[in-house]
């Protein structure tokens, strides 16, 4: 057996084991509820949850709320990343700006920005705009600090070489700094995607007309554990899909780091 096929079979075996573990957990859960060991009022059970998800998907009910949440998440993410990257470049290139502003930014990054939400709502109301700003505030600092760090870490020798080859400031940004930042930015987006979605959902818990947060909060207020869990399942599935896409983007941005000859 060659090394490659051995690796594949180990990988495959892990995958099967993982699936078996998950299924046994679900079966045990369902069995425990049926046997009366768990109270379905609190825990619900896998089969009813799956039935609820299926009903929501077929009726299109969940699509409407999912799109609302994803819209807010995506808008906030784009605003946050764009502002963060621009500020990160400014910070990376302007020393005085860096010295004045960086301590504030580091402090702001350490602060749980979700506490700003009541203030944002006070100014802008319960509409989606408030939630977009909340999400952007969650994303902007990691994006900014990553961009800044990536610019700082660019190899001096590479910059010198590019300058000798004739690169002026704009060409340096395009050929050296942007690719250097892109590598880290995709990783940061992957990590902050979780914050962004969490921000959008928490924002929807109170006062939202649409959105997954509203669905879950409403179900919770009616003591429907089944629907709370169904909402969670839908969110998990969507997050998993998004992460899959972001992982592909990350691999693409880091393609030059692969060491094996293809």
């Amino acid at each position, binding site marked *: 057996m060659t090394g490659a096929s051995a690796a594949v079979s180990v990988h495959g075996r892990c995958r099967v084991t993982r699936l078996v573990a998950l299924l046994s957990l679900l079966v045990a859960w369902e069995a425990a509820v049926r046997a009366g060991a768990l109270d379905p009022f609190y825990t619900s059970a896998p089969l009813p949850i799956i039935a609820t998800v299926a009903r929501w998907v077929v009726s299109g009910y969940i699509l409407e709320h999912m799109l609302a949440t994803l819209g807010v998440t995506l808008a906030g993410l784009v605003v946050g990343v764009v502002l963060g990257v621009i500020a990160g470049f400014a910070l990376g290139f302007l020393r005085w700006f860096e010295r004045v502003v960086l301590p504030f930014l580091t402090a702001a990054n350490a602060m749980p920005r979700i506490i700003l939400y009541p203030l944002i709502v006070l100014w802008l109301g319960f509409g989606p705009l408030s939630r977009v700003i909340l999400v952007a505030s969650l994303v902007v600092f990691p994006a900014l600090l990553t961009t800044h760090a990536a610019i700082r870490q660019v*190899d001096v*020798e*590479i910059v*010198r*070489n*590019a*300058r*000798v*080859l*004739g*690169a002026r400031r704009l*060409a340096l940004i395009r*050929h*050296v700094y942007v*690719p*250097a930042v892109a*590598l880290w930015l995709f990783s940061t987006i992957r990590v902050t995607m979780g914050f962004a979605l969490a921000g959008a959902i928490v924002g929807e818990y109170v006062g939202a007309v649409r959105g997954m947060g509203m669905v879950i909060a409403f179900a919770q207020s009616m003591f429907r554990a089944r629907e709370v869990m169904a909402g969670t399942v839908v969110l998990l599935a969507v997050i998993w899909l998004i992460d899959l896409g972001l992982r592909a983007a990350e691999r693409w941005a880091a*393609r*030059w*780091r*692969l*060491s*094996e*000859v*293809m």
Partner: protein
Amino acid sequence: MTSPLVTMGPRSTVDLPAIEVAGLSKRFEASEGTVSAIESITFVVRSGEFLCLVGPSGCGKSTLLNIIAGLLPASGGQLRICGEPGGGIRPGRIGYVFQRDALLPWKTALQNVMLPLLLRGVPAAQAQKEALDWVHKVGLGGFEHHYPSQLSGGMRKRISLAMTMVYRPSIILMDEPFAALDVQTRNLMENELLALWAEAGSTVLFVTHDLDEAIALADRIIVLTAAPARVRGDYPVPLDRPRDVTEIRMSGAFVDIYRRIWQDLREEVAASHDRR
């Protein structure tokens, strides 16, 4: 004859020295006070010449190249490139091969070699054609779409060389470019460098701490003192060209030159060791 532009062109490349360094010095501010890296150094590199600067490690050779390239300001003295004052990055004039290969890791070999052409406004299609020619010329045909991380140290060095030669700079600065290579690859690269240099007719200022390498390559060798760098000696290398760097090392003339220069260099190496 009436237009000054027409008469200036050939004169500036043929008559004038490629590099003139006069009384150049460089001081750095360090925690323990001002450190002098280069002290009043003076020498001339003639147009088309292959000049090696030899000195003990850490004597300020790289600093000198960085000043000539225009990457560092000098603290005092004068510098003229092709008769014009001031070091400086002027497109097409100076090429610089670094000790560590400074390829852009996110570009393929071909894209790296294309970069200096694109920066000079050469249309992409033509830049690609010329760059591909050079990738083949340095013996890496078939590897043009590999990223630097997929190439060996010797291959990356070849790409660095192609990246510099592709825009035909009249002066090429080299800072111990082959120091990290194994001996066989290194001798191969040295021979290729000599061939490329003979073909391009450019001026080469080559920094090394390896006297063997300097004699095998150079027309002339300048030995620098231990830090702060000053000129210790200036030696012609009257060996025939074309040379094979591996064979020339065994000739009697080579050994004679080596012995003569080593007398000077040995003292400087000892001085730089005592200081540590």
